[in-house]
């Protein structure tokens, strides 16, 4: 094979391997969002799990809740800290969005940053969007 062709191919490969580095140089890199507690969540200071657990595990918890509500009609969740919560994303004061009022700042900022598109919102709606 032609040596120049090999070198050209090798150069393309090296550039491709280094893409995580130069991609961030040529594009404007968005900084990590700072999680913000707003409104009710700021004053309540109680959540279903502690902070790190919540960050890592909230999706599994929501999955368990979905099964519990849909299959067993059990809608109340008693957390380890003794408080009871309504197993719902968006219904009522005692649900996730009832406390964390701003979906965009609370859910979407991190999800967008980590490129996670949860299919929660294919069925559920953000109550604020309806009004």
């Amino acid at each position, binding site marked *: 094979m032609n040596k120049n062709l090999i070198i050209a191919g090798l150069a393309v490969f090296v550039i491709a391997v280094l893409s995580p580095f130069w991609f961030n140089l040529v594009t404007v*890199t968005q900084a990590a969002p700072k999680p913000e507690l707003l409104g009710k969540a700021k004053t309540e200071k109680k959540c279903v799990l502690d902070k790190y657990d919540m960050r*890592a595990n909230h999706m599994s918890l929501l999955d368990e809740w979905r099964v519990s509500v849909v299959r067993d009609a059990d809608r109340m969740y008693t957390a380890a800290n003794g408080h009871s919560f309504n197993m719902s994303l968006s219904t009522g004061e005692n649900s996730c969005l009832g406390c964390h009022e701003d979906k965009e700042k609370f859910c979407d900022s991190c999800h967008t940053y980590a490129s996670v*598109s949860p299919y929660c919102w294919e069925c559920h709606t953000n109550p604020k969007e309806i009004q």
Partner: protein
Amino acid sequence: MNQKYLIPLTTVFLLFLVAYTGVEGAGLQWFFGIVFPYLAVFAFLAGFVIKVMGWASSAVPFRIPTTCGQQKSLPWIKQNCIDNPDTSTGVFIRMVLEIFLFRSLFRNTKAAFNRNVSNKLAYSWEIFLWLGALAFHYSFLVVLLRHFRFFTSPVPSCLKWLEYFDGIVQLGLPGLFVSGVVLLAATLFLLARRIFDTKVTYISQAADYFPLFLIIGIAATGIAMRYFTKVDIMGIKTLTMGLATFSPVIPEGVGGLFYAHVFMVSVLFAYFPASKLMHMGGIFLSPTRNMANNTRAKRHVNPWNYDVKTHTYAEYEDHFRDKMIEAGLPVDKKE
């Protein structure tokens, strides 16, 4: 039990434990999360370039195509243009099919004795290695590309599309990615083939098992983090974005499993150029695949031929004519 796979298996376990205990016990996050990944990328690129340049500078004096079809011949004999190409277009098509579809492997056969009375040796088509290899390579590619979400911000939409199609089964939360499952299943199949097929066991070396165990370890830790033990993705993305923008930071609360995963990936990268995994670059340079079979149509002169001092028959006769005539030998040219 066989030392050829026990040693690589133990090595992969040790690599995992070194990173896991190094982080959990000794707090060496900066080493396993920052120093070693950078070193691994450097070793990968330097090793890859050195190896390919070495191959590029080695001579390929002859056309040595292995062919699977009719060569270009008389006009009324039909040529197989892809399997026995005489043009660079044909070679290009053959290489594309080889690289993307592993066409040579598709022709894989196995030899076995018939199970009946005749007990004859028979060759049969063996497609499962090809299927396993395709499943493994493509799922690994998708998994690798998906990981670009940790190194880009905002994440390009093509990666989101890839994630959408990979997660299209919408099972569980976080949603199941098909590629991860296929990757683990395919590597386990390729490993089972090496262990249970006695003829393959016989030709398998530690260097064949080590990458397999390493990739199984990488896939298993990745799947464990995503679906079972759970990790703080935001913390991890802070680390990976730091690596990509040369301002690394160690996030709080990310456990040893993540660093073990990163360490094994780094080891795979660093080991890559020194191993059989270099077939990734080598497939492009396969001399039996990437050359047109046109030796009958074109004269290929060995590039390092030196001037051979020849002594043709005419010169020989000029030299010995008198003596030949004297001895009564026939000569072409008298006087």
